[in-house]
């Protein structure tokens, strides 16, 4: 027998269930008074540098129904491409936001600053993007994806370049509507199935 490896194993995931709001955004669930406010209601404070943008959309299940009970988290760099904690990062950008699908319409809205491009340790530049994590009843392992922006040059982005089926790249790219709001929908199944990530 070889020596045993002393690497532990990650704790298995379980679904966040239908009541995830109680634990993560209790005020949204109507539970007030335990915390002063829900965690991470906005990823930016007043005075954040850069272009303030709004992204809106829905997450659709395999029947095309907009899910009313999903919860999202976003993580992003500041306008200069620096993550919080990095040297020179914008102190007005926490970079982290929690938000939920509307219980009646299923629509979410994220108001934030547009992130800058971020360099990988190999020196490649990732086009501006926001990382998204999605949990809900029926999702057994939280789903990771990204939002990129239509106006940017994605030709050298190391993640988008790895998508073999080129039409699927569009599932990660938000497009501005005529109101100036980025639209980004997530599809769990079907012809428009979003590219989900394992990074």
């Amino acid at each position, binding site marked *: 027998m070889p020596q045993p490896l002393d690497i532990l194993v990650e704790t*298995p995931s379980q679904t966040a269930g239908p009541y995830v709001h109680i634990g993560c955004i209790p005020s949204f669930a109507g539970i007030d008074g335990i915390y002063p406010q829900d965690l991470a209601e906005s990823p930016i404070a007043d005075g954040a540098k850069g272009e303030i943008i709004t992204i809106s959309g829905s997450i659709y299940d395999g029947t095309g129904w907009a899910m009313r009970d999903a919860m999202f988290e976003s*993580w992003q760099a500041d306008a200069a491409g620096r993550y919080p904690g990095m040297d020179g990062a914008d102190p007005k950008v926490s970079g982290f936001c929690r938000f939920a699908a509307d219980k009646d319409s299923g629509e979410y809205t994220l108001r934030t600053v547009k992130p800058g491009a971020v360099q990988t340790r190999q020196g490649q530049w990732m086009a501006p993007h926001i990382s998204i994590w999605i949990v809900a009843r029926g999702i057994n392992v939280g789903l*990771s994806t990204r939002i990129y922006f239509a106006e940017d040059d994605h030709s050298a982005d190391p993640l988008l370049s790895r998508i073999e089926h080129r039409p699927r790249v569009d599932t990660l790219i938000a497009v501005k509507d005529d109101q100036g709001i980025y639209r980004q929908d997530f599809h769990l*199944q079907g012809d428009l199935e979003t590219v989900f990530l394992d990074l």
Partner: protein
Amino acid sequence: MTDTAPLMPRRREVHPDPYDPAYKTSVTRSPKLPLLALESTPTEETGPLFTHDLIGPLDNNLIVNFTQGKGLAVGERIRVHGKVMDEQGRPVPNTLVEIWQANAGGRYRHIKDTYFAPLDPNFGGCGRTLTDEDGSYEFMTVRPGAYPWPNRANDWRPMHIHFSIFGHAFGQRLISQMYFEGDPLIARCPIVETIKDRSQIERLVAPLDMQNSRGMDYLAYRFDIVLRGRRQTRFENKLEGM
């Protein structure tokens, strides 16, 4: 600046199957196409960090936090404690741990929960804490009740507490559930059974911990959590293709 080494790949085989017909909701909520797998980038290797000033003094005591100490929740008093580590066995300090659960009768304080069991006016059902320097955390709460749920005609959830853990990197983000040693409903739950490796299910079952219980006060349960680790090597900072 904290450690930003690459994350170890997630071992998908220890996690639940995303698609499991016995858990009906997963049928339409599981991606059909493969995930796109890549080495982690700074986006996944960094993450939100929280400080102790976020946490109120009653936040980790679900027996009293809903009433802010004016009344006690009904139920069997328990202490849930453990340690958050990474796959290298290193403690994960100062990380946010959030929990939520049903009350002692098996009812959630949520508009979507219509079970017969009554709400407890003294119980909200959520709590949070930051781990100490050695990765340890603890909560006081009441044992949640089991409850029926709409899946197959007679499915019941075992007693459980939902856990949300951050780690120090967005790629370590994890939500799971803790079950209680000896609960006969664990083996009958289609959500538990989405995990196909039985030895992994056992890792979600907290043992009764009499040595950390307190006579005439509470029983203790021990629940340790492992998050993804980071590779430990000096051979990372090389140019593409080299």
